């Protein structure tokens, strides 16, 4: 019986020839990640284990990105705890001014490669599946044990194969494909399962677009989302990934719990209505929805391609007088590149606030919290109740093109309406 790419990576790291769905395994990990919210708890639990050293300082990464630059005294204390632990253990650590949102940063820094097994105390760790790695979110206790032992337990997931054929329409990107897919699968449609993304439309997609899609696999409940490794992947990792890596492919006779096909040429830009990412609608069916704020950024859509799309739409235009537009490049390198390409001037001239990399408003942390009754369009990944501020505020999820057009119009708008 053949194996899927997910099964092969898990089998290799568990030292087994084969694994099958449902099997409980103990596997070696290539990298463990935590941030300023999850690391403090993981460090506390690590200490309780009675271990003094992490298993390998070069395989532990700590990124302060959620409440940083520190939003208040309590967050400053948490960030300090993480920084001190990083120094004490000599693990990989990125300080403010040299960092980025973890899931934009790690691939950019070449810390993840094809065939890796990565756990992160952050649910969007699944982002690295775009590079053909098995990457999944865990909690702080799991992470504490992973930091101490270099191992983690897993239940081998079943895999759902998703095939996208046809050519993408203008202004449709990875975000629209994944929102459409979540609308189809539902927020628990892939619970405990792996999502494998394939097809000609996927091959056409840029790496940035693939990161966006893998990022939101968890929004369908999936354990991981994984992409085939192709020329684009190898091009991306060339010169970045220093560790040896291994490219795995699914066997022709691999088992899938389900196969779904999508005609990408029929997918319009998507908008997910409050309060679940599965409440998706075509942009043509959105209606007249006035908004107060737009956020372009996050680990979902804070990459170079996203900023370029937004700038294309905002160039020479003004943000609607009643809207706040907040743009947050995903990493310092992306920020610098955007400066060099003149995108930051486009944003500022349009009337946007541009921030240093941070999760900030994405999780209702700081830098753009919503008041009661306010509505935002965000390129982030979650629109749960209270996610971006007041429990009676609303978040509409979209890609950067719709977000930028909406900022100009003051209501949810299609890119064509402003060009």
């Amino acid at each position, binding site marked *: 019986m053949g194996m899927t790419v997910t099964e092969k990576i898990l089998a290799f790291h568990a030292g087994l020839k084969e694994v099958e769905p449902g099997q*409980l395994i103990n596997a070696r990990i290539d990298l463990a990640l935590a941030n300023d*919210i*999850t690391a*403090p*708890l993981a460090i*506390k*639990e690590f200490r*309780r*284990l*009675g*271990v003094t050293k992490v298993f390998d300082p070069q395989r532990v990464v700590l990124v302060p990105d*959620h*409440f940083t630059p520190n*939003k*208040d005294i*309590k*967050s400053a204390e*948490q960030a300090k705890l993480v920084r001190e632990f990083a120094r004490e253990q000599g693990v990989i650590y990125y300080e403010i001014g040299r960092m980025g949102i973890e899931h934009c940063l790690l691939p950019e820094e070449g810390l993840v490669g094809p065939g890796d097994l990565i756990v*992160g*105390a*952050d*649910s969007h*760790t699944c982002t690295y599946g775009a590079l053909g790695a098995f990457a999944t*979110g*865990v*909690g*702080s*206790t*799991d992470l*504490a*044990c992973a930091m*101490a*032992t270099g191992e983690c*337990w897993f239940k081998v997931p079943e895999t759902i194969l998703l095939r996208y054929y046809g050519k993408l329409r203008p202004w449709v990107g990875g975000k629209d494909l994944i929102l459409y897919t979540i609308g189809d699968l539902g*927020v*628990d449609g892939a*619970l*405990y399962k792996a999502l494998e993304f394939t097809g000609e439309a996927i091959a056409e997609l840029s790496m940035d677009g693939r990161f966006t899609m893998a990022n939101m696999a968890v929004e369908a*409940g999936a*354990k991981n989302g994984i992409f085939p490794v192709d020329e684009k992947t190898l091009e991306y990792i060339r010169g970045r990934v220093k560790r040896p890596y291994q490219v795995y492919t699914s066997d022709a006779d691999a088992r899938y719990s389900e196969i779904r096909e999508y005609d990408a040429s029929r997918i319009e830009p998507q908008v997910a209505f409050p309060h*679940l990412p599965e409440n998706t609608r075509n942009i043509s069916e959105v209606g007249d929805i006035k908004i107060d704020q737009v956020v372009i950024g996050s680990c979902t859509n804070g990459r170079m391609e996203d900023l370029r799309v937004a700038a294309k739409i905002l160039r020479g235009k003004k943000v609607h007088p009643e809207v706040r537009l907040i743009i947050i490049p995903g990493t310092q390198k992306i920020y610098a590149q955007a400066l060099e390409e003149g995108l930051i001037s486009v944003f500022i001239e349009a009337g946007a606030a541009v921030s240093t990399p941070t999760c900030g408003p994405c*999780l*209702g*942390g700081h830098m753009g919290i919503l008041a009661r009754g306010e509505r935002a369009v965000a390129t982030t990944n*979650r629109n*749960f*109740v*209270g*996610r971006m501020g007041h*429990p009676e505020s609303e978040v509409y999820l979209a890609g950067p093109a719709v977000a930028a057009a909406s900022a100009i119009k003051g209501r949810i708008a299609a890119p064509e309406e402003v060009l």
Partner: protein
Amino acid sequence: MQPIRGRCHKFGDDIDTDVIIPARYLNTTDPQELAKHCMEDADPAFPAKVKPGDIIIAGKNFGCGSSREHAPLAIKGAGVAAVVASSFARIFYRNAINIGLPIFEAPGLAEASEPGDEIVIYPEEGVITNLTRNLTFRTAPFPPFMQGIMAAGGLIPYVAKKLKGEV
């Protein structure tokens, strides 16, 4: 594991971790502090009315969203003895087991129960009964590996023992 008996609080489908403990309170890891805001975006009265030993019952995909372990910690901090849902999001499931918060999957229980009902869970038999309505549901017993974690009181004591070569 001993049977768990308590009064139930009922929630719907897709209760996410932002509802269980909103991110605005994540600048602490103290379970007692977190408990003060547990479930407040779904039911502002919950932190005040929840009593030690109570049971949360809910629909499908409980705990979806972020990986924050603060979510099961807030529930445990509030004194909740167990959570029973039709299904759980996977990271929440892992986290609950790892911190020693008993959780059980029992489709149908939430639909058949009302707030305040008396519930009793027999973990070893895999049986859950709503005593108020005299209805019984099945739940899968934990695999031996997870029983080991639960018996040790969570993943940390379990791994600590393993590191010392005791298991």
